[in-house]
């Protein structure tokens, strides 16, 4: 008796929803980045789960590519946070509105 594909997809969906709430509600850019990681990881879980149930290695390759993209995204995001800190800006996503259209 092993858990089926559906159980992994449900866990992945719950994690994605939690990450989404964090991205939308938190105001500290650092915590927004952490929530984004939760969302990316939930997508990875779905990819690996589908890959296992279809029976090819493709899903795992996709998950590895997502990990690389996530690492790049973290570098740029954290670089932005360091740049904001160096310019003495308030680290609050509700006050950083200069790029608003």
């Amino acid at each position: 008796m092993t858990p089926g594909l559906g159980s992994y997809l449900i866990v992945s969906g719950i994690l994605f929803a939690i990450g989404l709430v964090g991205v939308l509600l938190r105001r500290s850019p650092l915590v927004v980045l952490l929530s984004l990681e939760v969302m990316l990881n939930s997508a990875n879980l779905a990819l690996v789960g589908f890959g296992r149930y279809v029976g090819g290695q493709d899903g795992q390759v996709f998950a590895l590519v997502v990990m690389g993209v996530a690492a790049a995204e973290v570098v740029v995001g954290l670089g932005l946070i360091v740049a904001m800190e160096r310019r003495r800006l308030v680290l609050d996503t509700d006050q950083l509105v200069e790029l608003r259209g």
Partner: protein
Amino acid sequence: MATVVWFVASACAIASALAVIVQRNPFIAAIALLGNLASLATLYLLLQSDFVAAAQIIVYAGAVMVMFLFVIAYVGPHAEVPDERRHTWQLIAACVAAGAILVEIALAVGRSTLDSAASVEDSFGSPQAVGEVFLTRYVGAFELVSLLLLVAAIAGVVLGSGPRPSRVVDERQRRVQEARDLAASRAGDDR
């Protein structure tokens, strides 16, 4: 046995994800994310994806989290938004969006017919098997990711070594202005 491990790992993953978004202290949120990553690695092992689980621990729990903790330590107390009040409509909208995604996934899973796993040989998920597919069929994606990481590394250097902090610049401008004013007043006295 697998069901027990699945249940414990899933519960840990969901609990730690909740901790990430609820914690006010970014340091504790980052540690909670570490727990989330470890639980997900356990789930990958259950899915026989050994190499992805190892990469998850080394790349995420190792490199990415060290970077996060470094920046949290660099930013220090500024990382916490002191008064995290939010509009009620934001809370409602976020919960509606999350609920919509959950309902959608529940409906899709309920109707799926993919519940029987494919039978795979023991080498499934081993570095050889993954690497063979990665470096033949998906070699284009492999090269693109390497290019992306190079660009991201350059972006990190550029963003991290921008102009001086504005306070220092302001101080310098103020001194230059003072010197100019002094020179102008002296020129006025000479006349």
